[in-house]
Structure formats: structure tokens, C-alpha cells
């Protein structure tokens, strides 16, 4: 190489970068179990190609059986499924991927800061892709308000019709609903003025005014934004333990009205905050917004031994013991809400069995809000099942109710679970 200048030496680093990455992939090998905590998912691994399939497909092609040859090997390239998997893996397995994405998010925040520098907005976007927002003082992250319009009312009507049919088919059962108000449906959402036609509590009012006969409804609604903040995480879309325990009390009172023999209300006054956990929840993970992590608190409630089954197989639920023993992840974005409260397998049917004298069984249809209070509610029943209809598409409620001795049915969760389908 003649006439190499200092300048050309600098840019030679470009080629080193280009070569370093494939060498890195070769060195680390095929990684199949790498996870991304912030995204709460397993990272894609490079797909494998079977040489046997290839040679079989060639043989099939040679005898003119192109259809089978395609199905055996070639179609994955024609429909690009192989390429998509490969592209996903190359992106996921890229060295320093996460710091790179964090840098991009910082650049995005700088642009947002610049754009809003002279604007009076109390709430600004967290990043440029998620459509999530943050209070300028960092006190809360929030998503944009849900709309109240003809379409939302139609969705609510659909849900009401579903409840009506369910109640009519099972006249001997008691049906309850508990609605956990979230900011995107609340009247005190600071973005309501910005978004004309936002929910502001009107969807729930509509649902309430059309409530089907036979469905008893209670709610955990907050009087203002400050009260909401006290009962919900700032970096996650769930309620915190204080919100969840308030919900337990309200639900207990509601169930007790139709269930006079219900056991004593549990003592939930003993809470504990893990001093070394800074909980950065789903909002923080999605946006990588550097919000101050939440405290992570739990309630220690004396429960007798119980059994847990997932799709009929008994499992050990030991999160409380593990956490008490200090056996938990300290990493940022570790999802403590799921790890502690949930036993987290989407699309499955859970069953809690308490060896007590309760004459009743309960079915909870709800989303992830249910997890912190599920064992508490189950304690008052003999058998308690729970399912999330949004995750368990094939679950047939009527069939389940015919095949199992259920006395009470509780619909529990936010708007998605109670009066709107997922949006």
C-alpha cells in the first residue's frame, strides 16, 4: 500500500469494525438462550440449515417434484422466513447491541428536549417510537389517553353482549367484575386536554350505565393524579402493592355480600420494601427512559399451605421464599412484578387449591393486575382457577363452567380485561 496518509489510517478502523463483528459471531457460536431484560424476551438465535433437507430437496427437484422440494427446503427462502430469522438474529446478537440502543434513545431524548425546550407542556414524549410520555418532573410515565368515541362504545357493547350471554347460560353462578382504573382511561390524566376526545372516564361510565343484570361491579378509582401515583408504579403499567391491597379489600367486600360464609379478611398490613431493588418496569424497559426506579414492596400475608397447578400439572411457587432469601436479580429492568407475583406462563390455566372447608370455587378471568392478589382471593375458596382470555384465545368459558364446579366468576383487571378488548 503506497502513500498511506494518517487520514487513511483513521478510516481503516471502518474495515476492522466490519470484520470484527462476524469474527465475534464465530467466536461466541450460536447463542440460543440469551435474553433481553429490558425487552422481556429471548433474543433470536441464528437459524440452522439442514444439509440433509437440501440434498433431499435437490433429489426431489431432479425428479420434477418441485412442490415437495419447495416444502422441504426452498420455500423458506422464497417466503423469506429464513432471511427474516437471520436478520433478526444478526440484529439481536450484535456485539454491544444494548449500549447502542441506549445511545440512540439518548439522541432521541436530546431531540425531544430541543423540540420542547420552549413549549409549556407538562408532559413530554419519552422517545420517538413508543408513544409513551413522561411528566417533565419525572414523577410518572404514562401512555396516551384511550379515545372515547363510537368505536370504543361499540367495543364496550360487544363486551356487554358477551357478559349477557355468559350470565344467561349460567344462571346459577354469581358474576362479579372489578375494574382497576388506569391513567389512559382516567379523568385526571394530564394528557386529556391535549388529546381531544380522550376517554377521561367516559368509557367506564358508559359501561356502568349499560351494566348487564346479574353482574356486580366495583372499582378502584382514584380521586386525583396524586392518589393514582401513590398506588401505581411510575415506571410500569401496573398498580403497586398498595393499590393491589386496596383492590383486595374492595373485592373481598364485594364477594362477601354474596358469600356470607367467607373466611376472615386476611391481614395485609405487613409490607416490606426490598432495599436493594430499584424496579424499572415495562414503561422504562420499552423506552429506556432514565426515570428514577420504583421501590419494590410486597405484602407478607400468612397463608396456609396450598397447591398450584398450571394446565393440570402441579408446580412449585416459591418466589416469596426466593426473594426473602435474597435470591433475585439485581439487574436494571429485571421484571420484579412478574418475577415475584406472577408465575408468568401466558396462555395457561392456573389453579390454586387450598385445603380448607370452603364450599365454594372461584374462576378469575383477568389480566396481569390479578397476580398480586390472586393467592389472597384464592385463600377464601377451595379451588380457584384463573385465565387471561387475551392470552388464552382457545379458552371457552362456558365449556369450562360446565365441566368444573364453579360458584363465583370474577372479572378482574383494567379496561382491557373488564370492558374493552385489547387495543
Amino acid at each position: 500500500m503506497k502513500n498511506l496518509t494518517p487520514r487513511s489510517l483513521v478510516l481503516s478502523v471502518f474495515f476492522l469494525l466490519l470484520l470484527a463483528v462476524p469474527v465475534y459471531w464465530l467466536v461466541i457460536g450460536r447463542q440460543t438462550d440469551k435474553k433481553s431484560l429490558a425487552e422481556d424476551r429471548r433474543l433470536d438465535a441464528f437459524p440452522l440449515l439442514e444439509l440433509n433437507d437440501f440434498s433431499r430437496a435437490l433429489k426431489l427437484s431432479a425428479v420434477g417434484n418441485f412442490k415437495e422440494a419447495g416444502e422441504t427446503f426452498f420455500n423458506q427462502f422464497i417466503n423469506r422466513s429464513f432471511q427474516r430469522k437471520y436478520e433478526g438474529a444478526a440484529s439481536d446478537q450484535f456485539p454491544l447491541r444494548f449500549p447502542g440502543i441506549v445511545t440512540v434513545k439518548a439522541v432521541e431524548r436530546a431531540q425531544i428536549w430541543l423540540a420542547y425546550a420552549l413549549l409549556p407542556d407538562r408532559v413530554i414524549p419519552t422517545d420517538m417510537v413508543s408513544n409513551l410520555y413522561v411528566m417533565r418532573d419525572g414523577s410518572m410515565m404514562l401512555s396516551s389517553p384511550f379515545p372515547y368515541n363510537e368505536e370504543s362504545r361499540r367495543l364496550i357493547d360487544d363486551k356487554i353482549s358477551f357478559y349477557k350471554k355468559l350470565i344467561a347460560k349460567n344462571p346459577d353462578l354469581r358474576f362479579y367484575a372489578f375494574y382497576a382504573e388506569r391513567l389512559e382511561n382516567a379523568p385526571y390524566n394530564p394528557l386529556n386536554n391535549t388529546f381531544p376526545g380522550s376517554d377521561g372516564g367516559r368509557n367506564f361510565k358508559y359501561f356502568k350505565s349499560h351494566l348487564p343484570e346479574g353482574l356486580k361491579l366495583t372499582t378502584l378509582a382514584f380521586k386525583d393524579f396524586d392518589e393514582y401515583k401513590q398506588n401505581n408504579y411510575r415506571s410500569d403499567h401496573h398498580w403497586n402493592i398498595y393499590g393491589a391491597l386496596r383492590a383486595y379489600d374492595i373485592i373481598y367486600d364485594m364477594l362477601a355480600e354474596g358469600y356470607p360464609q367467607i373466611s376472615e379478611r386476611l391481614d395485609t398490613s405487613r409490607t416490606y420494601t426490598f432495599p436493594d431493588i430499584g424496579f424499572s418496569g415495562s414503561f422504562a424497559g420499552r423506552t429506556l427512559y432514565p426515570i428514577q426506579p420504583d421501590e419494590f414492596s410486597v405484602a407478607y400475608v400468612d397463608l396456609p399451605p396450598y397447591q398450584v397447578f398450571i394446565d393440570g400439572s402441579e408446580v412449585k411457587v416459591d418466589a416469596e421464599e426466593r426473594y426473602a432469601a435474597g435470591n433475585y436479580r439485581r439487574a436494571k429492568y429485571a421484571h420484579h412484578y412478574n418475577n415475584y407475583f406472577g408465575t408468568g406462563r401466558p396462555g395457561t390455566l392456573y389453579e390454586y387449591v387450598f385445603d380448607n372447608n370452603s364450599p365454594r370455587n372461584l374462576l378469575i378471568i383477568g389480566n396481569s393486575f390479578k397476580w398480586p392478589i390472586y393467592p389472597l382471593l384464592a385463600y377464601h375458596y377451595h379451588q380457584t382457577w384463573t385465565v387471561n382470555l387475551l392470552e388464552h384465545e382457545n379458552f371457552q368459558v362456558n365449556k369450562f363452567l360446565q365441566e368444573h364446579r364453579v360458584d363465583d366468576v370474577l372479572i378482574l383487571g383494567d379496561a382491557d380485561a373488564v370492558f374493552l378488548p385489547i387495543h
Partner: protein
Amino acid sequence: MSFSSINFLFILLPVTLVLYYLVRSWKWRNLVLLAASLLFFAWGDFGHVPLLVGLVLLNYGIARWIGAYAARNQPKAAQRVMWLGVGLNILILWFSKYLGFSVGIFQQITGTQFEFIEPKRPLGISYFTFSSLSYLLDVYYGVEKAERNLLRFGNYIVMFPKLLQGPITRFGQVKAELQTAAFNYEEILDGVRRFIVGLAKKVIIADTIAAATKKILAVDMATIGADVAWFAVIAFTLQIYFDFSGYTDMAVGLGKMLGFRLPENFNYPYISRSITEFWRRWHMTLTAWFRTYLFIPLEFARKNVKHLRQQTNLFIVFLLTGLWHDASWNFIIWGGYFGIILVIEASGWGRKLKTLPRVLQHLYALLLIMVGWIFFRLINPADWGPFFGALVGAHGWSGVSNFRTLNIVFYVPLMIAAGFLSLPWLKQKVDALVERSTVGSILVDGLLLCLFALTVAYVLSNGYAAFMYGSF
């Protein structure tokens, strides 16, 4: 495969460069380049690899046939073969890209209804068909000799830097490089610089601004006010320039890395002072192609036409330029729109325009260009009325869908920066700095490296984004 994908940047590109420069003979280099190009194409469109290879073989054979007749001094026979080749290429292009559109028109005219499944469009068909056509015509007119080496000819058609989105290259522009095995490190580094700039233009600017345009155009046009409508027009004006010129920068840069000098496609089109000037600065290789192979032949063919010959020829060329972009009425109207303006400018208005203050000339050109992009971007003509209505304030200055509900406020700083970067000022300053100072040049290259790292981070963050011009 997209130039901005991790697969291309960190697998195909380094492997190709290493193999390409490890081998010392041009024959082996051509083999490496051909294999890499076919893999590049197959990654995005595996099913059409046989078509691409077939077209290469077809045009290679036809050109040899033309050459053979020309050598035997049989011009009529050569002409027949040339027309056969041109016809076959156009037929394949029509079948791949325009059949569905033609069937739709046929059904509308005849009032018939029948089920029709449109064939999947091969990637880059317009580009490699136009390369093939220019080659056949150049061979016929004696500008080029029919290439005997299939490998060299194959690379002319399929070489990956220009395969999918141009620049549309004539055989003569790469012929010499296809038979040399030079290694010029400074030239390669120049290519790297150009490539990084293009990659950043595409990924950081165009793809980001594209999200703003997409958000606005996803809502009911009747809900947006004049503020958002103008924002959308400006956003798309910037997006399409940075998308396409970014791609060209990458293509030219990659070409340089492999020892080719591909033609330029853009020359700061938004500083134009007339639409005539704009088309000398925008998609220059396409304009040159139409000028060489359509406009000039039309001028000759219609030389006896006394009135408005040049104007009608211009209009025909621009209607076809619009149609080349896609088989859709909005593109034809977009082409016709510019055709009409060019005819008016060619008919005297262009001369009067030059007497106006420069700022007015710039405003005139920019406004017409931006209006043109509305036809280009809004595929459904039913959207044009409400959108133009919004532009002139028919739904008020601000509508229900505003900057905050659409969450587009934060694009403003990037768009201001992009507007600034679409002018030549910064490049002139950087070039001057590099010219007069070694430290300055090292600093610029260091910044380019940082820009590359940031762009890769953007790719990781954004995921894959298809190039807007990929489907043309």
C-alpha cells in the same frame, strides 16, 4: 438485502471485500462480484433469481446477435434483432410490473369483472431492465461493442451496488473497470466516506422523518389543519431526498470500494431555481436515460412536426417517467404535472423566470416540487382533495389531529437540520477543511467513524426499514 441491514454491513460486505481483493485477476474478481450480487438479490427475492439470470443471458445473446449482424454489415437484420430485444425486455417489464394495472384499466373500460392475481414484482426490475435496454441500444448504434465475456456482462447488469435502485448505468461507464484488477486504497477509502454519509442520510434522517409522514397520512385527512398538512409536505420532501440520495451515496461509495465509478444521481436538487433545473439535479441517471433513449430519438423521429414538437416530446417523456416509477395513476399524473410545467418553462416562462429575484425563483421551484410530491406520495387520488383542502386551510389552521396528538413535535429539530443538510454549504466547508488541513481531515474521518457507529446503533434500534425506491 438492504444496504442498511446488519447482514449486508457485517456479513456480505466484508466477506465480498476480502475475497474481492484477495484474488488478483479481474476474472476471479468478476466471479466474486457476480456471486455476491446474486446472493444479494436472492436474499431479498429468491424466487426471481431465475428471471434475473435469464434476462442476463437473453440480453447477452441478443447483443451478440446484433453485433454479429452489424459486423456482417446487415443493418436491417441488426435492427430487427434490436427491436426483438427491446420488445422482449419491455414485455417482461410490463408483465412483471404493469400487468395488474393494465388489467384494471381493461376491466374498467369493458365493464368486465374477473379474478386476477397479480404476479409478485421482481426487486429492481425497472433498473436492470433499463440497464439492459441502454446496452442493447448502445450496441445497435455502435456506441459499444457486444461484450463477449459473459461474466463481465453479467456483472454490468447485476452488480449489487446499483442492482436494485440504480444509479442507472451505461455499459461504457463500467466497462473498463470490469477488466482491470487495480487496488487503490485511497479510492476505496473515498468510497467508505461516501458510503457512511449515505447510510446516515438514509437511516438517521430519512427513516426517522418517514415515521412522521406515516403518522400524519394514517389519519383522516379531514381532521388535519394547514399546519400539519404543510408539515407533512415538507417532511416528505426531505424524506424522499435523503432516502434516495442516501441510497445513491451508498451505491456510489460501494462502487468505489470495488473499483467502479458509478454515475452521480443527485446534485442538491432543492437549490434549483426552476423545474427544468430540478430535473437536471434530481435522479440524473433516469433523466439522462430518457433524454438519450427517448427524447432525442423522438426529436429526430418527429423532426417534420412544425409546432410544439419539443413540448409534446417533453410531455410524453415525463408521462413515461411517471409511469416508470410505478403502475399507478398518481405516478402518471405526477409525471404529467412536471411535464406540463416543463413545457410551460420551455415555452418562454423559463426565460421570464430568470429575470425574477433569485429568492422568488427558489420559492417558485421549491413550491412546485413540494406540490409534486403530494401526487407522488398520496397513491389514492381520493385523498388529494381533502389534503389540498387542508393545505389551503379548509379545515382551519390546526385540526383535531394536531402536532401533539400525532406526537410529531420532536421531528422539528431533525427536519430543520435536514433542510440545512440538503444545501451544499456544509459539504463545501468540510471539503475546504479537508483540503487545507491534515488535522481537519483526520477529524472529519474520526467523525465519520462515529457517525457510522451511531448509524449502526440506529439500525439496531429501528430494525429493518425498506428503501422507498426498492419497489420501483
